[in-house]
């Protein structure tokens, strides 16, 4: 009996996503090296930097949980940035931009979902292809009308604060809360866990498997659209090359947050802290003057070690 208790205890501890540990370690490092930086104003600004990534991760987490992946984010980001900055829609209002961005995210997400869920095309390939098409479309459009300025209302909103906390950060936390509640309180969350753990069993227990995957991709598309709006507001200018590394970073943060391909496990907050870890990682490394190469290597090592930690646990729980 004692052994059983210990074992479940071990399982419980090793179930904590690696992101929490990484975050704690980075916080301690920062506390020792630059104690003055640990105040709400400064941290707020650092966290604001990763809000687009954070929102993207909310969607990526969902698709990874149903054993899929979305690599089309960069294309959506570029397209939405282009809508807003290119005066393609002259004099359009903020709600119009939000609406058309969400519509784009929805359409791309639905298409990805249809291809992955219904047509059963490899998610890696299809979302990659969609990304290439979207980037190509923007390149084509940009040759006729290069991106220009972003209406100032975007950066005005981006720079507001509520109490001491930047609005974008609050927006991200709110979205994460909604997502967390949606997955824990609604039937859809159960569907996601089931499809992730075993799609065939999910089918036989009456889960609409294809629809679950399609909805996951659609939500991911919407999240990408929201992330794009925040990203565009943050850079306040049009660009022909923006955020191309975001989707793969989103995958990395999700993994760090303890969500694993096709195991049906994981929640919103692990990846949330995965993103926060990336934010701190960037700060800590810049603080210590670690160059570009060092950043890449550290990032790679952290992801690898986190994955190994998780891999060993799953190997253990299997026997």
């Amino acid at each position, binding site marked *: 009996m004692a052994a059983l208790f210990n074992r479940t205890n071990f399982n419980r501890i090793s179930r904590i996503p690696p992101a929490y540990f990484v975050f704690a370690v980075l916080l301690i490092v920062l506390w020792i090296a630059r104690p003055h930086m640990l105040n709400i104003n400064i941290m707020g600004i650092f966290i604001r930097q990763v809000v687009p990534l954070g929102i993207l991760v909310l969607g990526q987490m969902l698709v990874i949980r149903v054993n899929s992946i979305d690599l089309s984010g960069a294309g959506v980001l570029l397209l939405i940035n282009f809508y807003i900055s290119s005066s393609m829609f002259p004099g359009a209002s903020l709600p119009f931009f939000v609406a058309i961005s969400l519509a784009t995210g929805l359409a791309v997400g639905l298409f990805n979902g249809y291809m992955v869920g219904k047509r059963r095309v490899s998610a890696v390939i299809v979302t990659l292809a969609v990304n290439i098409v979207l980037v190509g479309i923007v390149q084509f459009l940009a040759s006729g009308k290069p991106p220009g300025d972003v209406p100032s209302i975007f950066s005005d909103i981006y720079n507001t604060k509520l109490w001491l906390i930047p609005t974008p950060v609050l927006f991200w936390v709110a979205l994460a809360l909604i997502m967390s509640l949606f997955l824990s309180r609604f039937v859809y969350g159960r*569907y996601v866990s089931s499809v992730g*753990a075993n799609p065939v069993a999910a*089918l036989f227990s009456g*889960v609409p498997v294809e629809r679950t995957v399609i909805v996951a991709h659609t939500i991911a598309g919407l999240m990408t659209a929201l992330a794009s709006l925040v990203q565009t507001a943050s850079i306040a200018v049009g660009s022909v090359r923006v955020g191309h590394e975001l989707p793969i970073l989103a995958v990395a943060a999700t993994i760090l947050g303890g969500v694993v391909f096709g195991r049906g496990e994981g929640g919103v907050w692990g990846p949330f802290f995965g993103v926060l870890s990336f934010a701190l990682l960037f700060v800590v490394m810049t603080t210590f003057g670690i160059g570009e190469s060092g950043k890449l290597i550290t990032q790679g090592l952290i992801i690898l070690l986190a994955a190994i930690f998780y891999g060993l646990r799953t190997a253990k*729980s299997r026997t």
Partner: protein
Amino acid sequence: MQVAATRIGGDVKKRIEMSGISKAFGGSVALKNVSFELLEGSVHALMGENGAGKSTLMKILAGVHQPDSGEIFRDGRAVTFATPKEALDFGISTVFQELSLLANLTIAENMFLGREPTLRFGTVDYTTMNRETTKALAELGLDLDPKTMVSELTIAERQFVEIAHGIKADASIFILDEPTAALNAADVEVLNRHIRRLRDEGKAIVYISHRMDEIFEICDMVTVLKDSELVATKPLAEMTPHSLIAMMVGRELKDLFPERNAEPGEPMLDVENFRISASSEPFSMTVGKGEIVGMAGLEGQGQQRFLRSLVGQFEPFGGKVSVRGKALKFPVSKDGGIRYLQSLGVGLVPEDRKEEGLFLTLSIGHNIAMGLHSRKSEFSLADGYGEKIRETMASMSVQASGPAELVSALSGGNQQKVLLGRYLAAGMSILLVEEPTRGVDIGAKSEIYRLLRDFANKGGAVVVLSRETIELIGLCDRLYVVHDDTIVSEMAAENATEHNILDAALSRQASQVRLETTP
């Protein structure tokens, strides 16, 4: 039919001696100081409930696992096998329980996988492989092109290829772990003939099966394991099925099945002029309230395809189906069919609990509640169903630390109960159950039979498929005999025997019938 016990004489050589084998996985003990001897020229049955340690013992012998302590002697010399390949090199050949052929390889490639002959420069010698394969298949009476991809074979053909793979080698020791799980009676006889031939050649064979009739038909010796320990090794001539079961579980066979229902109520499921495939004949069937109906017959004659067509996994070629008098919108869609039928109170319990049934990495609670959740739309609030889960676990006596325990940590029997529990908890009124006790030990079997009977007695209706005819006869009220994608006969289970079921199936058929593929 009884094999002479006299063969086990004093001068017979011990092919294998395993002594004092212990093995633990993580914290759980799988084998405790088990000894096992295998004599040349004998067929040795290895019996025990699931989780008793049979498979682990054989996997140690086959080099898949290594023992924590204990020794293995091959013809008197101590040996260790680090890999299955090493065991094979020592002449130990295995047919594993799971269907383990690779669908994307040809028969010949499967047969020689891991020991392909090569020509110069390491090129695989396909000529030899194909020739040898044809020969090995012919010995089992099979006429298959060795270049055929396994994905194109029927289940039974695959099982035979698997057997041919296990016993084609120039090995002297054979481990057959449930080789007949997917075979029908006629095919089993072909296999038995082959096993006897091997025995007569002086080979030693370990035979694992849950089917009593087979054990007594071909085995000489039996070793019984219980709770990871050795109970006894005896000549089968000294045993009866009853005493063997008693040894395994301490219980009598007649206690296995619950009482039948006397009077079925109004029809719950009505099938009229149903056609499984384009060329098959239409048939009708019905299941009444409180009734358990079995679909009997040879393996792969369309029983499973019929059940799965009802829930949309296959497209039927016509027919009318009504549930409690209400006609179904037919055919139903592949993705939504199961959901649609569940909304009408019809649940299909799939055969393969690991692949199709359970979420092994998730909790018992999640597994049980999933049937309840999936009756709702994804955008509705999820109930915790805590009470319902506890109730279900208690009523099914699932042995676990609690609803939060992962299903992967449970034994086969308890897993099967959780699976069945999902459909009972979801409040289904009609259950379509495929292989309710596949790979489940006798103790759990009897509990599952009782649960199904209780379900029927409370006003439910059950359709059961099983490869084990004894199970169908014991459990059901009424049987439909299925052959060639249609129902050929109906009989009360009380009067049914394995013999008259086979008769009913085969008398109907005039010409040679090709086995239907069941994906």
